[in-house]
């Protein structure tokens, strides 16, 4: 058998803001001294980061009163005190330079009349510190970084290659496997260092802001390689998902002055967060919307059956909407038939962000269950849990984290690669095992296509692990997910036998990843017997710092089982207090 091997100094998996920022950092600092491979399951500039809309938070004008301490405090309070405070400090300190670097690389940031960078209000931030480029901020960050990378040589792109597994041996990164879309073969990527920048897991839900392609692949790979996932019970539900598609309507719509209204026309946030109103953090606004709906003050979309409330921008006027929220207007018109200049937008809470991720330290080094660095392996962006978002991420902190973490791991991975003599690969039989693992689905002659399994998983996540959670419901959900996993192994098959662009196979592999990650979310959520941030249990309504001020780590145990261990939160600046807005 032919062995397909590709070798790079550093290999990056994922081409969103975090992955591209990592690649740019390596290239701009080390030029052609290091050879980089950039692998993406989509074409490089099409990753889901393009859908980030509202902005990116950083303290850039201290002269006007903002401070790093305030950004850190807002982030930590927003996290419901589950953030590791040392990680937050590093994050807020590195953020400002990222804004100016992007600016110097061509980012079309929105501007003040005097030519400085404009900033807007965002939920949970006590200062207007969110930089933006209209309401397409993530799109422009992607565009800027991708184009910046084109300035450099000494890197290879692997568009639409699907990474199936990473290989770790002796607590060291030893390579990864990916399917080449053009010939269908499994390739071994050898590299001295690797960065996982594979994003979150939002497509586990069908009502979601995420692109179709965000299926938690990196998280599942890490789990299979024996790495712990951290705090996976914390899934953020963004308050304003467009009904019925789930497309994101940015928080900036409220930052610019939009109101949330129920079917009586009331600005109901007055009941739940009288000071911050619509600009309370996302977990709180989402719960408030669901309370209104539960108590009969919502609306119903007849086609989809979804219940919703209104996001009203009509009082902002056409000029402001066109200048500050043009994409929102376009999306509402094209996907809901609603012109926000004239009518309110139908919205409901929607799966939006994965606070948890692969266990790392504050420097985004991947850690094993004992807390030791897995040599050569780093994680960046949403895939990582460093953890700066804790139990609830503040709006506009995610794109910042992608930039900051990419910058950190770019430097660390490069330095590590420079100090490492050779990329050790796995044994040949490991490669053969990978091939047979990948193709067992294709070789099967009959069975169940995986589409149905995917849909059932999404329905389970939608109904059992949404804004309000309850023990028995979640246990039902967990059983369902285990059954799906069983079916995945016994019944699933791939009808398409082609070697070229076999997306039937890729979808099946994604579905397996989704099920494995879903199981971890379920187990973590069932175990956490308290309400904190985005994890709200109607059977355990209060936050319980005595028992639960700790991170959940989940590990694969045996072939199918999951083991939970816990780790203390690093609290070095502020004491946890009650969280009111």
């Amino acid at each position: 058998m032919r062995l397909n091997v590709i070798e790079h100094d550093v290999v990056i998996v994922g081409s969103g803001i975090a992955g591209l920022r990592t690649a740019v950092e390596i290239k701009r600092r080390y030029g052609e001294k290091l050879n980089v491979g950039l692998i993406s399951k989509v074409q490089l500039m099409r990753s889901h980061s393009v859908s980030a809309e509202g902005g990116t938070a950083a303290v850039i004008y201290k002269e006007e009163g903002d401070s790093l301490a305030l950004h850190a405090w807002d982030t930590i309070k927003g996290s419901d005190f589950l953030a590791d405070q040392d990680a937050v400090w590093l994050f807020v300190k590195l953020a400002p330079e990222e804004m100016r670097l992007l600016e110097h690389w061509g980012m079309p940031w929105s501007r003040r009349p005097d030519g400085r960078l404009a900033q807007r209000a965002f939920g949970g931030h006590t200062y207007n510190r969110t930089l933006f480029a209209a309401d397409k901020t993530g799109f422009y960050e992607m565009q800027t970084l991708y184009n910046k990378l084109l300035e450099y040589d000494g890197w290879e792109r692997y568009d639409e290659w699907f990474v199936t597994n990473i290989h770790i041996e002796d607590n060291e990164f030893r390579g990864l496997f990916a399917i080449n879309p053009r010939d269908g073969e499994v390739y071994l990527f050898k590299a001295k260092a690797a960065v996982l920048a594979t994003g979150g897991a939002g497509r586990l839900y069908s009502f979601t802001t995420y692109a179709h392609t965000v299926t938690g692949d990196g998280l599942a790979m890490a789990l299979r390689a024996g790495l712990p996932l951290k705090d996976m019970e914390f899934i953020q539900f963004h308050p304003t998902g467009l009904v019925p598609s789930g497309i994101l309507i940015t928080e900036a719509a409220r930052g610019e002055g939009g109101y949330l209204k129920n079917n009586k026309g009331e600005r109901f946030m007055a009941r739940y967060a009288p000071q911050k109103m619509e600009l309370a953090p996302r977990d709180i606004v989402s719960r408030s919307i669901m309370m209104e709906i539960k108590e009969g003050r919502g609306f119903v979309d007849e086609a989809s059956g979804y219940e919703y409330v209104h996001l009203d921008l009509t009082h902002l006027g056409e000029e402001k909407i066109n200048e500050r929220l043009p994409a929102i207007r376009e999306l509402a018109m094209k996907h809901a038939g609603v012109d926000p200049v004239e009518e309110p937008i139908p919205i409901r809470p929607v799966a939006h962000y994965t606070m948890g991720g692969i266990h790392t330290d504050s420097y985004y080094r991947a850690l094993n269950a004992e807390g030791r660095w897995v040599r050569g392996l780093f994680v960046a962006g949403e895939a990582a849990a460093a953890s700066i978002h804790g139990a609830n991420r503040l709006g506009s902190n995610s794109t910042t984290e992608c930039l900051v973490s990419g910058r950190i791991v770019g430097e660390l991975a490069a330095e590590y690669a420079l100090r490492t003599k050779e990329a050790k690969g796995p044994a040949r039989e490991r490669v053969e095992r990978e091939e047979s693992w990948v193709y067992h689905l294709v070789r099967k002659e009959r069975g169940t296509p995986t589409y149905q399994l995917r849909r059932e998983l999404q329905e389970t996540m939608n109904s059992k692990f949404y804004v309000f959670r309850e023990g028995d419901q979640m246990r039902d959900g967990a059983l369902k997910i285990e059954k799906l996993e069983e079916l995945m192994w016994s019944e699933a098959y791939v009808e398409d036998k082609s070697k070229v662009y076999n997306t039937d196979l890729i979808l099946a592999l994604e579905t397996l990843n989704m099920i494995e990650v879903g199981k971890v979310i379920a187990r973590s959520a069932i175990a956490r017997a308290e309400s904190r941030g985005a994890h709200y249990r109607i059977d355990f309504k209060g936050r319980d710092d005595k028992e639960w001020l700790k991170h959940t780590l989940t590990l694969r145990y045996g072939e199918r089982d999951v083991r939970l261990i816990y780790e203390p939160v690093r609290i070095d600046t502020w004491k946890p207090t009650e969280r009111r807005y």
Partner: protein
Amino acid sequence: MPVDLKAVTRRPPEVVKVRVKRFHPEKGQGWWQTYEIKTYRGMTVLDALLKIKAEVDHTLVFRYSCRMGVCGSCGVVVNGEPRLSCQTQISEKATPERPEVVVEPLYNFPVLRDLTTDFTEFFEKHRKVRPYLIRLDKQERENPALEYEQRPEELEAFYEYTLCISCGLCDAACPVYASNPRFLGPQALAYAYRYLADSRDEGWRLRLEELERDGSVYRCHFAASCSSVCPKVVDPAGAIQRLRRALLAYNLRLFKKRTAKNVEPMKVSAERWPLPPEARLMEGVDLEAQEKGAPVIPKEKLLED
């Protein structure tokens, strides 16, 4: 043709025929295949393809990701017109009289399989126009003390051309791109103009000389089909005209451009916003010192670990 914004509110015919132009590379075979699907109000062409993939024919291959018109993956030709499948309503194309939607791969792109086309050349042409800011002082560009000054009206001068999502619809619609493999195409040329017009870019001499040598700007026939199919309302045809004007001025030594410098440091010094009273410090924490400390990444320690 402008997108019909009311289409999303109309119910399409209950059953619609989706006719797909397919191609199987291993068999070297192309054919048309028709699927009949049940529709719903708000169904897009992408939704229809996904439904076919999940329920009818798992071997159908097409690209997609964000489903909200921003990633640029899902360009196809629908009823003869290059479109994003995720932002084309079935009800826009299928009528009660003719309940049919015809989907083909993008014109002018080599087909890899079914609706999936090869973008390699497209990406190379994009790269050729140096789609990044050029500054004479590279050191400063990589170590910014402050931001370049750019007033809203200066941003406005090129903003439209930043909207490009690299979906390829314009190149698929372009008659010159179809016949001349050396032609950079409307996408890359609009991008070239975007950087030329950016008040922060200092690379105008290099850009204009390269464009002159390349000659693509002069090959455009101004069919303007690129601008009419652009889903983001970029006007590549207009950009090419502007490039022509710039080249003419440059060749007559009349091209002028004032480029941006960093903003002045801020002079105001407002009171620091106080932290709220509930922000209670741990014992022995010196907040001021913590805040002042530079960010430290202890490389040696981290990599030896």
